[in-house]
């Protein structure tokens, strides 16, 4: 890898005072950005510049900054989490950009993810879907069975783990031309459907989660596959197919 250097960039960033305001793209110039910095560090640098210029800093979501929490979002140059695959925005590095580049930064766009401020959107729709069925009911009164006491086929365990890798970031919704949440819901349904502990509530889980998903105003999947490409955790379309199977099974029960 070539050594880090500094680049000058132009940013076109969505600014919106609050959920009611109209919002628009603002242009900012930022010089001396190290290509070794992450995209979020670059935004920190911009915010320092804005504060010095007495301009309100840009609000954006972030937490772990190591690709595990799912808080960072951002639609960068027309792609969820920017021009790289298998990463979150906090894992995106400025070496992906060239000196003189103009970079568009927009919030996730979905009716179900309303903008709260600037680049921050409200993803609580995902929480409500999860609450509608994304759990197993366990008696915690002192006689819980150790999870390892239940034998699970290696293949199923692996698939469940892979589905459970979903961090709820919402990139799938943001990148989908239909604003569909089916990759997220597919992962959450699959994670339990594959395990004996999840089988007990499987019927209601898939029906309730899909109902909640529809109520939140997410679009319908047309199998474009964009979500799978942009998902930072490599969640596969097989999970959507599994959800479709589960839903069919549950519907005819």
């Amino acid at each position: 890898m070539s050594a880090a250097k500094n680049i000058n960039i132009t940013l076109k960033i969505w600014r919106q005072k609050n959920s009611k305001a109209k919002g628009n793209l603002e242009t900012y110039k930022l010089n001396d950005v190290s290509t070794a910095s992450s995209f979020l560090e670059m935004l920190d640098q911009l915010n320092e510049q804005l504060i010095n210029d007495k301009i309100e800093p840009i609000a954006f979501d972030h937490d772990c900054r190591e690709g595990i929490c799912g808080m960072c979002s951002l639609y960068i140059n027309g792609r969820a989490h920017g021009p790289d695959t298998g990463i979150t925005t906090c894992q995106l590095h400025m070496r992906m950009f060239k000196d003189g580049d103009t970079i568009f930064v927009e919030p996730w766009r979905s009716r179900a993810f309303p903008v709260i401020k600037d680049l921050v959107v409200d993803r609580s729709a995902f929480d409500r879907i999860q609450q509608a069925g994304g759990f197993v009911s366990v008696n915690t009164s002192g006689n819980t069975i150790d999870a390892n006491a239940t034998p699970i086929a290696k293949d199923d365990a692996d698939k469940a783990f892979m589905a459970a890798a979903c961090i709820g970031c919402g990139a799938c919704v943001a990148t989908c031309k239909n604003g569909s949440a089916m990759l997220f819901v597919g992962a959450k349904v699959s994670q339990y459907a594959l395990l004996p502990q999840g089988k007990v509530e499987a019927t209601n889980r898939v029906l309730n989660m899909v109902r909640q998903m529809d109520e939140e105003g997410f679009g319908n999947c047309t199998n474009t596959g964009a979500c799978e490409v942009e998902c930072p955790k490599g969640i596969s379309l097989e999970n959507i197919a599994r959800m479709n199977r589960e839903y069919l099974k549950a519907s005819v029960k």
Partner: protein
Amino acid sequence: MAKSALLKSSIAKKYWMALTGLFLCLFLAGHLAGNLQLIFGDALQFNKYALFMTSNPAVKLLSYVTYISILFHAVDGFMLTYQNVKARPVGYAKSNPGANSSFSSRNMAILGTLILVFIVTHMVNFWAKMHFDKNMPLQTITVEAMGQKQDLYLTTNEGYLPVQQVAKSYDEATKSGLQTYIENRTEFYNTQAKVKVGEGYKDLHKITVAFFKDAKYGLIATILYVIAMAVLAFHLLHGFQSAFQSLGLNNPNWTPKIKFFGTAFAIVVPLLFAIIPVYIHFFLK
């Protein structure tokens, strides 16, 4: 269907989309086999086939399923698309969809709408003529006997009727004193007895050939037909394999095979459809 509405939910709509779409793929294969007789069969064979397709009760039932499938597929498709557009009220200033999805997959509704327009015009041009047109010609053959050319109607019981001896209607027959007249578009009646003596074949072959060979509109009709088949190809390029995903079939064993077959189907079927009018316009004598 206990707690879900097998019509209303997003996933259920997709089941119907997939089932109707796959049924229409079967329909396409059947329709193609029929059409290919325009190249590989003669007029009589094609017209016999057309008669079979409009009279056999099992085929009739299938044709109703086809009409319903097209309607349902289109209405369901429009509903899904409307909801999908609503799901993103504010769009992106910059977006790069080509980076993660195919052209076809993103334009199913537009491709489908174009196919719908094609289906409607196609039905006006052929289906409606076959079913309702008062001036639908009946098949004739020309025979030469002793240096004399004569046109004969073919009848479904393998008989012949000289065209000159058949009046277009009962009124015309009584005026001209001809022995036979045509009733109900295809039936030959005896003028005195007023009983049916035979039935002709609607000459769909002639209508079709005339349509694509028309001096004024034949070329443009051929070109538009070919374009419509290209649109269908793109619709199927995504649609065929997509239907299996919608129905929940996606695994490392089957999916590559389905995708391969779907791609082949999407290219071969529309291509063969498109060759037929091109053949008629440019090569059929």
